[in-house]
């Protein structure tokens, strides 16, 4: 059972193709990650799926409703929260909840029940009369999520929901998302925090308007099947990278903090010992060289560079 079915979805602005024949399905109750750099077409896709923007061609079906023909129907079935946590800052927590409840047509006992749920979920007990502007980032983020799901939508879109929030709050937030998904809610979330993307059941990587890769984290990492990734710790990562790039069996390199990841060509390549001595010949002292599991970041860089070239 698919909550979202996207088929050859395309949107152009003049000559610019923002979204280029993108197709994917999102299963009910799935946490679906949407990954891509700024301007890759994530937001345009989300806006089309939310009924804010008409597709140039292709179709998208959200919660059983066609986006192009019934955008208003889509809006009733979805919740939307963006990185800006678009709350009314001068209004209190309670007034924000009442307002958003009101525009989704909630009233009376239903509104009371949902209000209590949101206060509980966001941990805002005792803060009902606090102005939204006076809340710390994590609370505001959870309140924004609460306001977006007041009307119990089966599908929730989260557009970079964790921007500007501290790590503890981000973790709490992902716990909430997991709970939503367990309750059968489908969550489509965009992010550029790659560690967060690991929470998603499946991930779509979008690059230059095209769908560059799609699958679970494990599936995506198979892109490196038959190749080894070595992590090189050295005092001078920049110089190390420069030397590595000259070696024949090194396919590509990228910096990870103070370490360098080198993707080695072929399954036989990548003997840490031989690499260490060859680096030493070039005057670079490598403290450690270990084979590592590809991270999502490795995958992202690989996919994006592959799609770009």
């Amino acid at each position, binding site marked *: 059972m698919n909550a979202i079915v996207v088929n050859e979805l395309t949107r152009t602005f003049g000559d610019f193709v923002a979204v280029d024949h993108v197709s994917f399905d999102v299963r009910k109750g799935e946490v679906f990650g949407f990954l891509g750099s700024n301007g890759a077409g994530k937001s345009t896709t989300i806006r089309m799926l939310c009924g804010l923007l008409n597709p140039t061609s292709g179709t998208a079906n959200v919660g059983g409703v066609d986006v192009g023909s019934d955008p208003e129907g889509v809006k009733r079935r979805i919740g939307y929260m963006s990185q800006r946590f678009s709350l009314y800052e001068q209004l209190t927590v309670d007034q924000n909840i009442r307002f958003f409840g009101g*525009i989704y047509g909630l009233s009376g006992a239903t509104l009371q029940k949902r209000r209590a749920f949101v206060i509980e979920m966001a941990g805002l007990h005792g803060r009902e009369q606090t102005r939204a502007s006076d809340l710390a980032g994590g609370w505001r983020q959870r309140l924004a999520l609460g306001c977006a799901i007041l009307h119990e939508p089966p599908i929730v879109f989260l557009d970079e929901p964790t921007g500007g929030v501290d790590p503890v709050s981000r973790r709490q937030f992902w716990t909430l998302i997991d709970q939503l998904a367990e309750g059968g809610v489908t969550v489509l979330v965009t992010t550029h925090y790659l560690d967060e993307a690991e929470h998603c059941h499946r991930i779509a990587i979008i690059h230059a308007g095209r769908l560059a890769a799609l699958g679970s984290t494990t599936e995506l990492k198979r892109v490196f099947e038959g190749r080894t990734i070595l992590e090189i710790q050295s005092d001078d990562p920049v110089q190390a990278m420069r030397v590595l790039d000259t070696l024949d069996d090194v396919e590509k390199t990228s910096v990870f903090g103070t370490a360098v990841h080198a993707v080695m060509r072929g399954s036989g390549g990548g003997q840490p010992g031989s690499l260490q001595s060859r680096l030493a010949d070039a005057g670079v002292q490598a403290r450690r060289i270990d084979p590592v599991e590809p991270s999502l970041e490795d995958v992202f860089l690989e996919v994006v560079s592959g799609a770009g070239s």
Partner: protein
Amino acid sequence: MRKALSVGRKEVRQILRDRRSLMILLFVPAFFLLVYGYALNWDIRHVRLAVEDRDRSAASRSLVSAFVNSGYFDLVADIRSPGQVTELMNRGSVRAIVVIPYGLQRDLLAGQTVPVQVLLDGDNANTATTVMGYALTILQSESSRYRMVAGVMGGSAVMALPRVWYNPELRSTLFLVPGLIAYIVMITSVVSTSLSIVREKERGTMEQVRMSPLGAASFVLGKTIPYYLISLVSALAILLVAMVLFGVPMRGSWLVLLATISLYLVGALGLGLLVSSIADTQQVAFQIAVLASFLPTLMLSGFIFPIASMPAFLQAVTYVVPARYFLIALRGIVLKGVGLPVIWPQLVSLVIYSSVVLLLASLRLRRQWS
């Protein structure tokens, strides 16, 4: 409709929380009313007058007291030597001097024409013209008295007996207050509506609300109704304050007044919506709103400058200034006590204006909404 009410309730709460909006909506009108009501006033009174009375007769004394009793002049100096005339004028201690020649009484009684000199300080042309008008009126009525006494026929046998209706004392406040209402209400409603919508664009709350099944119409309705009510109250408050402070009459029907103000407000709010559909930041919205409301309402509405004396091109422009129609209607209701049979053409014009502006605004906003 219930959703629109939710938006309206939220808007009212926001207005109450937002000091800046409150300032614009409450203090600006009060401030304008006091400043314009007291300072913008063309009535000239207490003109400092000096008299050089060379005749010193009953007739000359009667002439001087006619000036003083007119209520426009304050006698501040009695000139004994001709040299004082220049000095008083140069120092600006008097604005007008009446020089009564020797033999005034004798010649008047003999039925002869006597020249009385009036010297005016012309550094402010408007004031001088007005004062000259006062002086001529006084001198004419005095001279006619003497012609009767002397039994002289001829001369000016026909006399104008002017009588000013609706504002017998020609107080400019009576003329200005309706203009002030038009002006204040226009500025506050255009500025506050456009700012409130553009603020939602700027902060991203508009995008959030657009994601909900709330229609553009409910959103706009909910956002403008509070401003409509506030502006209506503000307009009535200005009128009431003006009635108490400046003695402005209210001769017409309150119901017709309410309807007229409401029509005008719908146009003003529509203009605010139009501005908000053009501007993307509050700063730009504010500038456009002030420009679109303040200048035309002040200059091209007949508030201060009579439309009839404008060049043809500007007169044509005034047809798209709603305050033009509103002012005629408002002055009619408040000062003359006329009703629908007289002011309906103005109301029809306001309806047309409001419809066009609202149509344009809703077309633009709807396009931006989805």
